[in-house]
């Protein structure tokens, strides 16, 4: 990697990191580096300063916070796949993290980095959207909490203000009756999703009482498939009913046309994959 030159600092606390970031408009945060390093390598980014969060131990790991799990921003994808709390209360996150790229990337990449990079083709943005997670952001003025919809602003763009850092992700524990599935459609194991569907379904008395669906790569941000969620809610827990509900999965989306797929094919995939993901989530 032959990037342009930059300064580097490795603060020991969130406060020091925020201070370093706030002092330099062209500074960038680096955690696992799995998104930033390719940009540096290709000289698509010219930060003057890299603020490495690697030395801030309080940002690591998963804590039980009562009704929710508090996931430190530096928690790696690999750790998400292995953490017992995640497995017990937010299995969707573990399943999706296990599909990211390859083992080397999963051991370096972090949840905070993946979300802050805000690539709609990334897996975790749609997953936290479906999980209705709360993103905890710390800046010069202290901490604030923001919903996924309020966090992801556009393609590779978040609402993080200068000097702000995503410090943790609070994921409500899934209660009884909830099932989940992440359906990822990617041409090779290491490739980004052409379309991904993060589905949660709460089953009750042979019916789907409630469904939540986040879509990967169906727009410039992760999107909720609201129409399909509404159609699934109250429907009989059958493959046919889920398929029928999924016919509305692409409503309100504006998927890209690119090298990998045209928009109409993405819409078709979103419908098909949502049907499959809902069925799996509902235990059908």
């Amino acid at each position, binding site marked *: 990697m032959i990037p342009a030159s930059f300064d580097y600092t490795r603060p020991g606390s969130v406060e020091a990191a925020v201070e370093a970031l706030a002092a330099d408009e062209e500074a960038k945060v680096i955690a696992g580096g799995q998104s930033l390093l390719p940009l540096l390598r290709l000289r698509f980014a010219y930060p003057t300063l890299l603020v490495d969060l690697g030395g801030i131990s309080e940002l690591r790991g998963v804590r039980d916070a009562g009704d929710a799990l508090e996931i430190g921003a530096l928690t790696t994808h690999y750790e998400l796949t292995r953490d017992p709390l995640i497995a017990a209360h937010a299995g969707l996150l573990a399943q999706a993290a296990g599909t990211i790229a390859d083992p080397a990337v999963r051991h370096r990449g972090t949840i905070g980095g993946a979300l802050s990079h805000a690539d709609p083709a990334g897996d975790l943005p749609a997953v936290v959207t479906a999980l209705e997670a709360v993103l905890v952001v710390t800046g010069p003025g202290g901490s604030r909490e923001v919903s996924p919809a309020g966090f992801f602003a556009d393609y590779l763009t978040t609402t993080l203000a200068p000097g702000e850092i995503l410090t943790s992700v609070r994921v409500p524990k899934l209660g009884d009756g909830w099932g989940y599935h992440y359906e990822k459609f990617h041409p*090779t194991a290491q490739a980004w999703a052409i379309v991904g569907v993060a589905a949660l379904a709460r089953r009750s008395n042979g019916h789907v009482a409630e469904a939540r669906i986040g879509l990967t790569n169906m727009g410039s941000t992760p999107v909720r498939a609201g129409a399909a969620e509404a159609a699934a809610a109250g429907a009989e827990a059958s493959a046919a009913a889920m398929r029928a509900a999924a016919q509305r999965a692409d409503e309100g989306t504006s998927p890209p046309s690119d090298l990998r797929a045209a928009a109409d094919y993405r819409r078709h995939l979103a419908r098909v994959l949502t049907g499959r993901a809902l069925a799996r989530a509902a235990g059908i």
Partner: protein
Amino acid sequence: MTATADHEVGRARTRKEDARLVTGQTSWTDNIMLPGLAQVAFLRSPHAHARITSVNLDAARTAPGVIAVFAGADVAAEQGSLPCAWPVTEDIVIPNHPPMAVETVRYAGEIVAAVVARDRYAAADALELIDVEYEPLPPVLDMPAALEPGSPKVHAEGNKSYTWSLANGDLDAAFADAPVVIERTYRQQRLIPEAMEPRAVVVAPVADEFTMWSSTQIPHVLKVMLALVTGIPEHKLRVIAPDVGGGFGSKLQVTAEEVLALILARRLGRPVKWTESRTEGNAAVHHGRDQIQKIRIAADADGTLRGLDVDLLADMGAYLMIVTPGVPLLGAFMFNAIYKMAAYRFNCTGVFTTKTPTDAYRGAGRPEATYAIEHIMDDLAFHLGLDPLEVRERNWIKHEEFPYTTISGLTYDTGNYEAATALAKDLFQYEELRKEQSERNAASAQVRLGLGVSTYTEMCGLAPSRVLGSLRYAAGGWEHAAIRMLPTGMVEVITGSSAHGQGHETAWSQIVADELGVPFEDVRVLHGDTAISHKGMDTYGSRSLVVGGTALVSACGKVREKARVIAAAMMEVAPTDLEWADGRWAVRGDPDQGKTIGEIAFATFAAHDLPDGVEPSLDCDATIDPDNFSYPHGTHLCAVEVDTETGWVKIRSYVAVDDIGNVINPLIVDGQLHGGIVQGIAQALFEEAAYDDSGNLVTASLADYLIPSAADVPSFTLARTQTPSTLNPLGVKGVGEAGTIASTPAVVNAIVDALRPFGVTDVAMPCTPERVWRAINNALPSPGETPPLQPPAQNQVDGGGAA
């Protein structure tokens, strides 16, 4: 030649080179450090086609750490033209090919300036300070359009490089009253070779002599060509290919970067290094394939082939590189494959476009040909309602008909297509899978099953020099080997085949162990340094073992004969009283009396009691020029499951039965097949060098240019039939390209086989899920679907029919 306890040949030896390779102890070109080494970085054109109107180097020249900066005009007088060694016709157009563009750029990625700096960072920073102004010219991207009279020109001479033809038999008669004529157009998409090690070069000048380290497949050819291009006398050049991390043909080249590194080192009087990044390499390394194949067959009602007519357009890219125009010719002799027919005509036109030049890529011409014939044989079978294997069997050369001279004029020495196919069918459970396929089709299953057949052969072992000469190739096809016997009985083997991952050190050691009766461990193989291995034709075209191995056997034979005279003197008997038995010279009738090569080597070193006139040396060399190619063959069978709802293709099973003659090391052979098959699958399913409308490569990084990993392919079932070649003493045929040649049509035929019930006759490669889905939905439109935004990839209606 099967493995026995006493024989090294045939043993699945792990590779002796791997310890240093996998532990990182070896030295790749990029690891080489020299005092005063400067780094070179190249500025490349962002335009597919443009006139350079001005180049301003001032800011770069004064940047920190910069030693020198050059534009094309600065090196124009000494850079020469990159060589094309295969002018396939008398009237071929070979445009001037300056290593650094001077006036015009003709592909995005062409070099326009060079920075030499103290380190790579300073060099890369300075590149950004170079100001080049371009006047854009229209790109030329489509081959048929490029040949239209009004097309913008890539070169002043026009967009056609050459037309080369081959014809045997009466084609008109074959087609005139043929009951069946099928015509198809297939597209061989452009591919990018992705060697694990990117290209790199180091040049060290000492007085008027130059040593070049390069990640190359061809140190020997490179040395000759550098002398011719730069005017540096050949004896003042030394080229070293250290361990090289793969090539697949991409390092069978004399590159602009090598020539410029040499020129810059000479200009500056100091050593320089250049190492490419992956993204730089994707635009600048020569690409492979890229043909439009129009193919027509005539057959009798029972499927017996009568004639074959092939018209190719082959994309040369912007310039002719070392063997660019010859690649389609290597396919010309292979379209007829394993089949008998009365008439064949082949026509190829090489076309210039404003894209990266193409050249040899694993298989070079033969995968393209094999794909087309194996695909259309499936189309013929479908048209006639025959099993694809049945129609092949009706046409292939029977094992008792060898040696057989084909319609394209090659003489195949041996083969047994029946045996390989029977074994493959058995391992594949062909009949059971056909039954399952019928059941799924009958049930209109969402996931369909398709079975793909590829009964390939190929010509490899590139030699013979006379044939290559008759095809106007500038060089020969011989190979060299030498044996240096050390006093302690150790053996140094020198080979002109420069390995870049093939495992020569292991295989050559096994051969020498048997030939000279020495332990495997006592053999060391030296290669890739023109000062040590002074003579060679290098490694490509699955030629190393067939040609280089034969040279090695010959050199060993000479060593034995020299040793025989000395052994006889040592034992005070006549040389004619000795026989070579159990790896030593023994007295005939008195096997207790004998001398090993090691003992004889020590006696030769001491040289106290040699007979009069016998030189104190066992060293020998041999240069071998075979008089035919070699012809591996095999039957590959692929089963795919196609999800008709999404277009997803899953390879369910893959059986490869290959007949590569005798096997020196089955482990290396399996490795070659595994990698080769995956590389062919990659063409079928994943890889494509895509350009946008302005001629920019949009698959510049591996994020966009999809190469499969182990997670994307199934485990393969490999087996062999063994019909030894009669053309060389080892009975070997070559295996470096077989898997790649065979697997692409096997996979695509399987996909099309799964989709035949939908009326699909072809899916353009790579068969991405979207293309498969569109093929299904265009063939069988359903009212509920969103209509596709773009036309189907290449979904043809069945063109077969009674003539």
